[in-house]
């Protein structure tokens, strides 16, 4: 390690051992003043472990941490905050029921005569947020603002408390493009102020957009640190995966696809009041239909209505020309439908049950309780899908909640594949999962459609939709506004369609729509 006057934080030869596993070994990391530094790696590579060692959430087993040249040893996150290292997580860890101002100054409110000086709190809060170009009523409850604004407030608090190093742990995971842009403006401003910023994300586009350097970890070891501008995307992915991901998804973009099978699933005037306006949709066998739109535009609602998770109150559905009842998930499953929901944790996994049971669940539910799937058959199913989808788990009996996000997603996919579905709806199948699993799931979508399955894929990653969709439906304000086919399916045209005709909605209106 050459001494560099610009270096604000450096970690040398960090080791961290968990029972039965070495989470970090000999990892070096350095952060400069005024730098945005991406920390990349697949799930389980050691990103969060490294961050937790830096913030004192974990105690490292070896190595040294230098902050502005002086050795530090944070006992806990509070201690790290006092030293100058602040962290903002994906799930905002503020108190939603308190006001914005109270959140900003909680535990350090200005006092007068021993009592909290509310007026001063509010005044200082307004002044603080003004630096972030955030003109909001600081006396409003935190929960009345969108996640993006809450993120900025969390950042403002962290920077105000700590002020030297800011760690952003997947801050953009639940934001849409518009909100990400707002967050990045804040990040650039802080960078100009000379803060060192560590940025953890799964989105490579964002890495190239905002970061100066990247550090890549794999299996708890340092792969390397590079200047972002001179690092090719292909090389970056190769460093993360440790293998050349033969055809990285973006290469296939642009090849126009058409499905020429017969129309199997027809939806006519299908919709539900207040959720998604009536729409018409024909789906052919072996066709992938992408659904694009902003958060709250009716993407997820479209899926829920088709699957019967929310009953449609208008229109009809026919399958192979015959009227089909899709009034409940059970009814939809009888017609060989499957649905991987957006929120894996609350709607997908059965946390305490084993991977095997999670995979067998939908098939078992369809067979009914009186006809149990024999244990040997369950074991075979689980083993088959763990192998086929490369689900990383020590064994099939492990509770599914202990798996990483990407592997949970694959297990939920396996749950539906085990029922041999003919119509599979995937809502954000690649959100919050690592790059390796991401590419595998995209490949799986393509394989399934080649086998003749019809798929509806909802995704906010437009480049991804371009890769596998035969058609892309664009939603805006609960309405199916456009259908793009063939050569029309490009990132630009999708973005333009989402943005809408000439008149772009004002910023505040868009924000209000996102909250709803």
């Amino acid at each position: 390690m050459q001494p560099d006057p610009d270096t604000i934080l450096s970690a040398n030869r960090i080791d961290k051992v968990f029972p039965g596993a070495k989470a970090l070994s000999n990892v070096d990391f350095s952060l400069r003043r005024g730098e945005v530094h991406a920390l990349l790696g697949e799930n389980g590579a050691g990103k969060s472990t490294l961050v937790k060692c830096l913030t004192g959430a974990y105690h490292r087993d070896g190595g040294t941490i230098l902050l502005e040249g002086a050795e530090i040893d944070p006992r806990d996150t509070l201690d790290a905050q006092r030293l100058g290292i602040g962290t903002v997580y994906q799930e905002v860890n503020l108190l939603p029921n308190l006001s914005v101002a109270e959140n900003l100054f909680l535990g350090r409110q200005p006092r007068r005569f021993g009592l909290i000086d509310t007026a001063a709190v509010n005044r200082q809060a307004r002044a603080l947020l003004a630096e972030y170009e955030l003109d909001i009523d600081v006396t409003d409850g935190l929960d009345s603002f969108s996640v993006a604004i809450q993120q900025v407030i969390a950042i403002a608090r962290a920077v105000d408390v700590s002020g030297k190093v800011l760690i952003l742990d997947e801050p953009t995971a639940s934001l849409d493009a518009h909100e990400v842009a707002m967050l990045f403006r804040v990040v650039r401003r802080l960078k100009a102020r000379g803060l060192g910023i560590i940025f953890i994300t799964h989105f490579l586009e964002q890495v190239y957009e905002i970061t100066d350097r990247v550090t890549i970890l794999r299996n708890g070891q340092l792969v390397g640190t590079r200047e972002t501008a001179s690092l090719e995307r292909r090389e970056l992915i190769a460093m993360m995966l440790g293998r050349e991901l033969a055809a990285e998804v973006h290469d296939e973009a642009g090849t126009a696809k058409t499905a020429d099978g017969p129309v199997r699933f027809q939806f006519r005037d299908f919709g539900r009041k207040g959720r998604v306006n009536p729409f018409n949709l024909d789906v052919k066998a072996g066709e992938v239909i992408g659904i694009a739109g902003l958060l709250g535009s009716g993407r997820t609602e479209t899926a829920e209505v088709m699957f019967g998770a929310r009953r449609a109150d208008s229109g009809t559905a026919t399958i192979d020309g015959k009227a089909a009842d899709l009034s409940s998930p059970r009814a939809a499953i009888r017609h060989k439908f499957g649905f991987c929901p957006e929120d894996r944790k609350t709607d997908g996994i059965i946390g305490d049950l084993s991977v095997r049971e999670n995979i067998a669940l939908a098939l078992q539910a369809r067979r009914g309780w009186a006809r149990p799937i024999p244990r040997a058959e369950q074991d075979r199913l689980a083993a088959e899908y763990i192998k086929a989808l490369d689900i990383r788990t020590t064994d099939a009996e492990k509770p599914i909640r202990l798996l990483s996000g990407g592997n949970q997603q694959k297990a939920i996919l396996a749950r539906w594949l085990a029922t041999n579905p003919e119509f599979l709806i995937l809502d954000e199948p690649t959100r919050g999962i690592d790059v390796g699993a991401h590419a595998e799931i995209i490949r799986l979508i393509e394989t399934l459609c080649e086998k003749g399955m019809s798929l509806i894929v909802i995704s906010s990653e437009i480049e991804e939709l371009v890769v596998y969709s035969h058609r892309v439906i664009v939603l805006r304000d609960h309405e199916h506004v456009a259908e793009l086919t063939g050569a029309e399916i490009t990132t630009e045209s999708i973005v333009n369609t989402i943005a809408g005709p000439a008149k772009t909605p004002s910023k505040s209106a868009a924000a209000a729509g996102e909250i709803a």
Partner: protein
Amino acid sequence: MSMIGLYGKRLLPQFIALAIILGLVSIAFPGFFNLQIQNGRLYGSLIDILNRGAPVALLAIGMTVVIATKGIDLSVGAVMAICGAVAASAITSGYSLPATLLITVGVGVLCGLWNGILVAVLDIQPIIATLVLMVAGRGIAQMVTNGAILTFNDEGLIFIGSGSLFGLPMPVVIWITAGILVALLVRRTALGMLIEAVGVNRRASTLAGVSTPVLLIAAYVLSGLCASVAGIIAAADIRGADANNAGLWLELDAILAVVIGGTSLLGGRFSVAASLLGAMIIQSINTGILLSGFPPEFNLIIKAAIIVFILVLQSPKLQGTLAFFSRSNAAPKPAESKAK
């Protein structure tokens, strides 16, 4: 083999707790383990525990399944009182024994159906939904008996409370049979897994196509059914229906039995056998305190102390610490082999 091993491991803490309690009682009361056969029937303190514990054991069977769905059934004590009253009034107004039993069990099922519909269809929190019947149930039972203790002399009905079969008292035969039947029902079919899935994540289960409302209602119906059988046994035992005291506070003992059995109140994984052991642990404490000659005013406090001890032994935090110690002893070996 491995299934038995796994099962044994699951029940081990409950067996150990039971053994310790029985051991302690035998120190205070030397003749504790003695068994005699008189008139073709076993007698002794152990048999007494099995017999006296029958109502709580039966309630615990239904309660286990309800708790596994992330619910709770506070009404079982009151349902016992209702069913005892219904059985007594049916038999005294001239119905045959089979008809009486059928009517009584039917009333238990209806009570369960009521709870189940409140929880599954109207989506009311289980603790509130079953509180309704817990409060109203005793009133209903008093209406059935007109406020008096309704006595009966039907030999057949009395036999259920104090007769014997295969050398065992009837209540023992009944709860063991019920336990085996329910355990087979949930584990030989897919019911067990589906109930656990609903308990862990109701929304995700519904989206996976599980018929959640039906399963929830079935769980409460089973609980009502178990309570009605417990009510018949309690009434047959004293040859009368006491609307005020039959099954009083037993819902709490049943919940405690399930908790001692290691089924989480947060729903999910459950074991009927472990809950039955829990019921026997509670009854052993009750009987043991009586036999050991402690002044009665100490009973509840000693019971509470023992239960706190058992729960502390089961607490995840303590188990985590114990696991850490046992691992740190065994740790060096795997670490070395991994390094190579």
